[in-house]
């Protein structure tokens, strides 16, 4: 119970409405992840912050970033934990500076709304890292949550722009 409360008190929650139907948006999310996921040090995982991202299906499904010029240079962001097309996607989320036993979790829900889909993203587990972990950037509490949430907000807005352009904003 104490762990649940701590997880809830540190949860990052970001939502956005996108004028694309849930099934199609899920497909865009997973298949075009490299195209919509923002580039740069706040979003990608190793320099020069523009490796190719994909959901790699090799036994287990995992989200990876790979250097297109050197395939051995790659970072496994995490294993996929839930894969329910059009409904729910969840995956572990690790930064390169995490130790083997450290992991956070991202849950993405695709909620049908009149105008398409509301993406509800919840990122949990930051509280399990030591307070001085470099992933916290010296921040705690409100400031830490806002920093992580702003990163996701930017990323989901990039997804919205990409998905809307790809589909012409249609939803059925």
């Amino acid at each position: 119970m104490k762990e649940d409360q701590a997880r809830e008190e540190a949860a990052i929650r970001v939502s956005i409405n996108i004028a694309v139907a849930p099934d199609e948006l899920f497909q865009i999310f997973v298949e075009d992840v490299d195209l919509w996921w923002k580039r740069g040090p706040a979003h990608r995982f190793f320099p020069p912050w523009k490796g190719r991202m994909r959901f790699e299906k090799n036994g287990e499904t995992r989200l990876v970033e790979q250097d297109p010029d050197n395939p051995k240079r790659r970072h496994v962001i995490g294993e996929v934990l839930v894969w329910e097309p059009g409904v729910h996607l969840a995956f572990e989320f690790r930064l390169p500076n995490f130790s083997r036993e450290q992991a956070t979790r991202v849950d993405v829900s695709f909620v049908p709304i009149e105008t398409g889909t509301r993406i509800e993203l919840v990122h949990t587990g930051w509280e399990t890292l030591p307070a001085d972990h470099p992933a916290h950037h010296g921040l705690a509490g409100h400031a830490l949550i806002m920093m992580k949430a702003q990163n996701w907000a930017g990323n989901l807005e990039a997804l919205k722009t990409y998905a809307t352009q790809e589909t012409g904003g249609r939803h059925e």
Partner: protein
Amino acid sequence: MSERQSITAYLVASDAAAAIDFYKSVLGAEEPGARITMPGGKVGHAELKIGNSTLYLADEFPDIGALSPKSVGGCPVMLSVMVPDVDVVAERARAAGARMLGEIQDKFYGDRTGQFEDPFGFRWSIATQIEEVTPEELERRAAEMFGEG
């Protein structure tokens, strides 16, 4: 890098989610961007688009000094917004719980305008341009009104 307006008001509301609903229904606001929800359900950050302008909005967070008009006892800033039909917007505002501040009036400078305080303590001036007034005509009307010239 997207083009952002130079000045953006950041409203701290006592119930940001309800305030967002109010601005959507009364002022036709849209919420194109992502909304950040803090633990406990408070709005950490939201962005509203009204006409060609963007407005930021969040709930109160006293720990970081973010207090709403309800907590500080008023709001010294008035937000001015152009709307398609000031009378329709005023009626919607009144019906949604706003307090009208005086009557809606035709002004000598060509706007029909009124003011209200919304349920969250923010004051709004709403206006619709009803005629194009030339600088010469504006000067003449001002002189007539204020007894000069």
